[in-house]
Structures are given as C-alpha cells and as structure tokens.
C-alpha cells in the first residue's frame, strides 16, 4: 500500500532572473512500512522536499498525498492538526522542549491532540529506545545521542503514518550516529513504521530499504537496498 505520494511537486523561490527551482517536478511513492532515505548534496532540494512532505511549507504546484489525503487542500490550522496526527518529525537538533522532562517530551504531541497516550505502546517504544532510566531527566542532562533517541520516541509515540527525519545524525559523532540509525532501523521494522530520512551522507543512506537521490530539485535515481 502506498502511504505517501508526491505528484509533480514544484517549489519555486523568487521570480525573474533570480528564480530558483528548489523542487522541479518530484514524483515519489513510499510504501507503508518502508524506510526510505533521500540523499542529496547541499542545495539539491532535499530539505525543501522534506518540508513539503511534512506539510511545513506549501508547494508552488503539485500534490502531496498522505494516506490517500491531498494534504495541501487543508487549511493551515487543519494542516497543523493533520501533521500532529499523521507525521512525526526527527530534527537534526532534536528540538526537545527544554522545560519538560523526557517522558513529557515523548507524550507531548499526544497531549497537544487532547488524547491520552497508549501506555503499553509508549512503554514499548521507551524500552526499545533504551530510555527507561532517563524518563524523569531534563533534556539538557542528556547526551546528544540520548536526546535524539527521545526525539525518535516522541515521533513514534503518536503512531504517525510517516516519520520524517531531517539529518537525524547531523549533530552526532559516528559511533552515536550508528547507534541512532540502527535504532531507527529497528523501530521501523518493529513498529512497521514508515520512515523518510534525508541526509547528505551516502554511507548513512545505505541503512535504508531504499535510497532516493535528488539533484537540482529532481529525483535522479532510486536504489532499493532491500
């Protein structure tokens, strides 16, 4: 089943001579439960693509369909709620709320949606990511790798359709990067979680089921690792 699809997605910045085609007709399909990495150099349009996929920014033209829903037909506020329910983010700099403890950070999106967390499910995530002993800690008392694991747990907790990971290991050393990536891989398999990760690092991208290459706003090739 296709969970995520883009149709001739275009994003154009500026006008006239200074026009930049950040995305130039991207067509992409992601299967449910797939772990896809999007690789590109700086300025290739990979971040723009990720922002479009997550509904953080609107395209100039084209559609993004998540779970059969054309997300850009939604109004801003509806889009926010859609994002809250269907998409989990993992950022390069974690973006944890500094005044909340680890557990609170994890269940925050669920709380914002007015729901109570599925305790067993959240416990399972926490166990998988090895955060059991850190739940009451404040984020600034955690290492970078630990913080990123919290961010992953947070993204998983609301059972989103897709997790979008934006250079999730960009701030981590290579050993920790490996740990985090394998955790991503494990969770993807264990929770049948669809993950789209962008990175500029070829080596990292190889962990994914499939690698999509992007250059000058266009997809230039996909390799399946599976």
């Amino acid at each position, binding site marked *: 089943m296709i969970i995520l699809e883009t149709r001739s997605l275009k994003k154009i910045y500026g006008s006239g001579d200074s026009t930049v085609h950040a995305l130039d007709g991207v067509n992409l399909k992601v299967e449910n439960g797939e772990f896809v990495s999007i690789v590109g150099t700086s300025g290739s349009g990979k971040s723009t693509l990720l*922002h479009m996929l997550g509904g*953080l*920014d609107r395209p100039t033209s084209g559609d993004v369909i998540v779970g059969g829903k054309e997300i850009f037909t939604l109004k*801003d*506020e509806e889009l*926010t*709620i859609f*994002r*809250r*329910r269907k998409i*989990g*983010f993992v*950022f*390069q*700099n*974690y*973006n*944890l*709320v*500094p*005044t*909340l*403890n680890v*557990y*609170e950070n994890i*269940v*925050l*999106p669920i*709380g*914002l*949606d007015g729901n109570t967390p599925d305790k067993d499910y959240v416990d399972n995530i926490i166990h998988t990511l090895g955060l059991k002993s850190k*739940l*009451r*800690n*404040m984020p*600034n*008392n955690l290492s970078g790798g630990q913080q990123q694991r919290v961010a992953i747990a*947070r993204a998983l907790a*609301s059972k989103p359709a897709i997790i979008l990971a934006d250079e999730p290991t960009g*701030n981590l050393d290579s050993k920790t990067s490996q740990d985090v990536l394998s955790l991503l891989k494990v969770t993807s398999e264990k929770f049948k979680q669809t993950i789209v990760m962008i990175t500029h690092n070829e080596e990292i991208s190889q962990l994914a089921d499939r690698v999509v290459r992007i250059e000058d706003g266009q997809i230039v090739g996909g390799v399946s690792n599976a």
Partner: protein
Amino acid sequence: MLKVNSKKAINYLVKSSLKQYKMRNLFTIITIVLSVSLIAGLAFLSSAIEETERKELSTRQHVIYHNVNDKQISALKSHSQISFEKDIKRGQSFEQEDYIITPYYIEQNDSPFITVDIAEGRYPEQINEVLVYDQMLVQMGIKPRVGQSMSITYLDGTTEDYTVSGLLTAETTDVFPVYFSREYALSGSQLKDVPFDLSAQIEGAEKMGSEEFLSVIRGIGAGCGIDRKNINENNAFLRSLTYNYTEVIMIALLAFAILLVSVLVIYSIFYISISERTRQFGQLRTIGMTKKQVKRMVRKEGAVLSLIGSVIGIIIGAVFAFSMKPQGFSLDVFALYAIAIFAANFITVQVSIAKPAKLAASISPIEATRMSGYEVKNKKKQTKNLQRKLSPLSLSMISTKGNRKKSMMTIISLSLAGIVFMSASSYVDSMNAEEFSRESWFKFGEYTINISSNAAKVNDYGDMGIKANNPLNDTLIENLQAVDGVKKVIAMQTLSVNYTYNDVTKKDVAAPFTKDDAGLMSQYLKAGSIDYEKMIENKEIIIAHNEIAKEIFGWDFKVGDTVSLKWYNGENEVEDVFTIAGILQPSTTLYRNQEMFRLAHNAGWFMMPQGLLDTMMTPKFNLNTRIIVSTEDYWNTEERIEKEILSFTANNPLVTLSTLKSEMENDKQLYSVIYFTFMGAALFVIAFSIINLLNTLISNTMARKREFACLGAIGASNRQIKIMIIGEGMYFAAVNLIVTVTIGTLMGYALVKFAKWNGVSFLVYQFPLTYLLGYCLFVLLGTLAISAVISKVLSKKSLIERLRKIE
C-alpha cells in the same frame, strides 16, 4: 605576548550588532532614558529650587546691625568685609481710620537689597517730601499723582504737610509704609528719635560655612562696638550656607532604587540577546576572537546604548526641571549633576551587562557551532513526577517554572514596578487639600477668631494692651456656643513677653498648661522634670522648640538656667526671673500628638503652669488670644455659621475671623503646586513601571520564539501556541498584580504613614482604588494585547523560517 590593536575590528562588530538588534536596542534605550530622565528630573528640580532661592537671597541683606550710632555707621560703612550696606529707620506704626501707616527711611544707594520699586517720581530728598502708595492716597480721598500735597495727622495730634515726590503701586492692603527723606530721618518728628539700623551684605559670604559667617558678622559688630543682641543675621541666608544633606540623600536613595530596577531590566534584555547570539559568538571565537575581546565587544555595545540613553534622558530631565523653575538654571550645577548621572548610569549599564558579557565570553567555539542556539540552563536534573498535565495552559506554567531564574527576574522587575506604582499612587491619592489647610489651628475647628495683629501693632502694649479689655471674652464664647451646629469652642491663652537670655532680648510668647496637661507633657520631656505645684512655687518654666533656638541663635536653653521675662500685667510693665525646669522634645516629635500640638504650637519658647500665669497678672485679666470654633457638619453649615459668627465679630475691628474655607482658598495655589509636583513625579514613576512591564513581557516572549517554533513543528496549532503565550503573560500579570496589591499596598501605606510621621501632615491615607483598577486593567489588557500581537507576529513567519533559525 603579542599585543594587537583590535579596536577597529571590535568597533566594527559592535556597530554591526547594534544595527542588527534594533528591538533590543530600543528596549534598552527606553529603559535607560526612563531611569535617567527620572533621576535627572529630580536632581535638576531640586538644584533649580535651591538655585532660585540662592538668587532670591542675593537680593536680601545678610545681616542687620540694630540701634547703631553715627560713629558705628561710619565704621561699618568703611569696613573692608562689608560689600554693600544701607542704613534704615523704621518708625512706630499707627492707625489711620481703617488702615495702618509705618514711617520709613531707607538709604538710597546701589545695594541690591531693601529696594523700593518706585512706579513714578523719585525717592524723597527734601524734609517735606514723601514716597507713598497710590492706594493710600485713594483711601485718603486724594488723587494719586506726583507733586500732590497731602498731610498726615499723628497720634499726638500734630499734623504735618508733605508733597508727594514719588508713587508706589501695590495690591490692595491696609498697611502702608511711607518713605521719608534722609533729612526727615535725622530731624523729622516721627523718625528723629528712632535709632538707625544698618543692613549689610558681607563680602564673599556665599562661600562661607554658617559658623564662619556668624563669626564674621559678630566680629565686625564687636569691632564697631555693637552688642551681640543687636546683630540680627538673615536666617534664610544662614540656612542656605549649610548644605541640605537630607534632600541629597533622599535623591540618592531614590536614584539607587530606580537604577536597581534598570539593572534588572537591562540585564534580562542583554541576557536574552546574548543567548540568541550564541552561534555568532561561537563563530567569532572559532575565528580567533579571545574571551576578552568578546567581553569588550558586549561591553562596548552597552556603552553606546547607555551614552545615547543618558543624553536623551538628561535632556528630558533638564527640560522638565528647568521649565518648572526657569530661574534655577546654573551651568555649573547642571554640568556637575549631568556628569554624575552620566557616570552612575554608565556604571549601572556596565553592571547590568557584566554577567551577560561573561556568558558571551564563556561560549566555547565547539558548543556554539554544534549546538542549537538557545539552550536554557536548567539546573533541575529530574522532575518529581513522571508526567505533569500537558495542556497549552499548563505548559506555559511549566515553562515559567522551568526557567526559574529568568521568571524570577521578570517577576522581580515587574513587582518592583508595581510596588513603586502603588507607593506613588498611594501618596498622591492620600494628599488632601482640606488637611493641607488644616495644618495649623484648623486641626481643632473650622473657624478661628484672633486678636487683630494690625490692631495689636498700633497699641502701646501690643496684643496685651488689647487683652486688657479683651474682645475674646466669655460673652463671645457663650454666644458662639449657642450657635446651632457648633460642637466645641476652644479658647487659647498666651502671654506676650520680652525675654532676656544669653544676651538676647527679644519678643516672644509664653503659653500656659494645666495640671492635667502636665502629665502628658512629662512624657515628652527631653530634659528636666515637671512638678506642677513646685513650678508655681519656684517660678519655673518649660522650654519648647529648643531645637529652633539652636538653629537661630546657635545656642539652646539649658535646664537650671534662669530667664528674665518682662510683661504687661494689666497695669504696669513688670519683670521677673524664672528658672528652666524642663525642656521638651523637638517639635516634629511633639506634633505627632494632637494635644501636644495644641499646647506647644501655642507657645514660643516658654510654657508655664496656668497657676503661675495667674499670679503674674492682675486678677481677672483675660489672656485669650484665639478662639477656635469647631462645628458638627462644616461643609453643610459653613455659610450660615460664618454669618452668625460675623454677627458677633464683624463690628469689632480688634478681632479677625478666619475660616477653613478661606484658608483653603488661600492655599489653593500653593497646594496645587505641591500636588502637581508630586503628581508629575508619580506619573513619571508610573510611566516607568508600565513601560518596564511591556518591555519585560515583549522581550520575554520574543526570547522563546524558537521553543514555540519547535512546538509548532511537532503539531501545536497556532491557537495552542497563542494560548501558551497568553497563559504565560497572564501568569506574570497575576503574580505582578498579587505583589502590587499586597506588598505595594503595604509599602504605599507605610510611605504615607512615614511621611505623615515626619511632618507631612496633610496626608490622609487613601487606598488608591482608581489607580489600582487602572493599573490592573492596563496590565491585563496590555498583557493580552501584547501576547496576541506577538503570537500573530510569530505565526506570520512560516514554520520553516522559524525552525531554520534554530539550526
């Protein structure tokens, strides 16, 4: 170590950062401008008042040598230490139909004091010439013009004819000086037996200390053979020679409090600004900027801002102060104060940003480049509960508690503003025009009937002569008591005396006290004791206001000393010697008790037992000097009762009636000056506290825009974020209001009580409800508006932009 001149590079960085962080600069400058203009306004106003007084004093004599003979006059006139002098004569006042005339001679020379402003004509030169008020001629039924002939009939029945050589104009009065020529002063009937007085200004006296000044004028007097008791220094001038430290200390304390608030505000503004710029500092460190250089850069930014703010603030303060007292401008004082304020403010700003600068310098290159920008330093390692409630509202609570240090700073800064606001508005609201006019005898009633001072002036025995057949008699008192609506009639007695003590012979007033009063008075004794019966037996007296004697004469009365009193006993002038049995505490202490005020305010230096006073007078002599009438319901009955009282007194020229209403009318201008001065200062303080509030709220929320962006990314809707921002604002508003209402009210109450205790007796504590409601409304609406605007501003920028800023 290699020394490099990095000044240029740092200056460049400072310039660019000042250009970039306009919002922060604006807030900082507003804070500085407010505090500086407040301090400068106060300091300049106080200096301007002093300067105005000084300028006025330059047209006053420094000293008068009384009863001087020709030889003494010529010795004084040629004295090297006397810069200006004038000899004058003042004759005996006498009554003419319904006005009073006082004969004068004033020497005409270029001395700047005791000048006569002649409207038309010139000062008399011939023995038969006079200079008079046009109003007096009108009253005489003569056309007021120069060259007019007129005559005055004196008390002994003789009439003298004069020609008007000049005219003076004045507002309506019934006491007219008449100026005569020198020739008349020497041989004219009214002045030839009156000794000359010589008033003088002393060379360089303005720069002397008060002790030095006194010894100079006494030295001059002694050198010319003038007794100490005939040397009369100008007390206002003498006071101007001693520096008024209390005022300076008050201003310094106030300035300190204001600067303290600014420190908090500027600190938080810079703290936030530095946190936002972690990355920038990190980069600068990476490319080789030393910690010292980073510190210097931040300090320079502060210096530039404090320079701009100080200049604007000093200008505002100066314009405010000198527009109120244009006479009071003096370049020296202005420059001195401006520099002092400038320096104080510079130090304040540097103190405020010392910690943020240190923080900036401590950012390590690695930390800055690798980590995200805004890292809250959270001391708390773990929470107690696994999960707290996570609604938007409770999130805002968690966030304020999480940033405990910053929240505390915000709360302290807001609370200080609120407390200052409440204190200022309590004070202004407690000012009471009626109490202002009730400062003196109107404390005890609404009407006072006194022996006319004009009438007393023309009686050979003064007021005692009038009291010999006292119009303030029992019949009058009975009549007054019978008036409908009169609650109480209080009659007060005094005895006018001439006392001699420590070589000084002067007029003064002695007041009686009863055996019942003695108990109360003994609680207010500073020295000695009161034994009513023994005091009568041994002819003993009590001294009041001794501290004023010290101020005027440089000496004070001592227990056990004797004072010689001379008085009119109803038949003759008699003289006797009395012993000082006790000395009362200073007047400010006495006046905290209403009864003590009544007893002591009635007296000059001397208080004596009623029983002793009775033995000093002829039997049945009525010493009433003032009758105070208090009424049940003044404001509803004042017109009728005044009419009724006038029916007893209006036909008697020996008494005068004053009413609270007329007193308030007289005080209106003075009161409104005082009121608006306080109001102005209070409004300024209030503006300061309110802008401070806005300032804190805006900078506080702007600092957390990253956190809001991050929440937005994980799915918090704009509405939820708005609720968070408003919730946080409301939290601060609530704490602020609670502190304002509780501590602010207490402080306001304490301030009013303290001021009242220290003699500002026209304060009647009023809870400043209107001000408080206005403040509450402002704080709540202001917070709502700002929060709404901020969340709007935040939501306008796309999430990506906001998130990008983090990365």
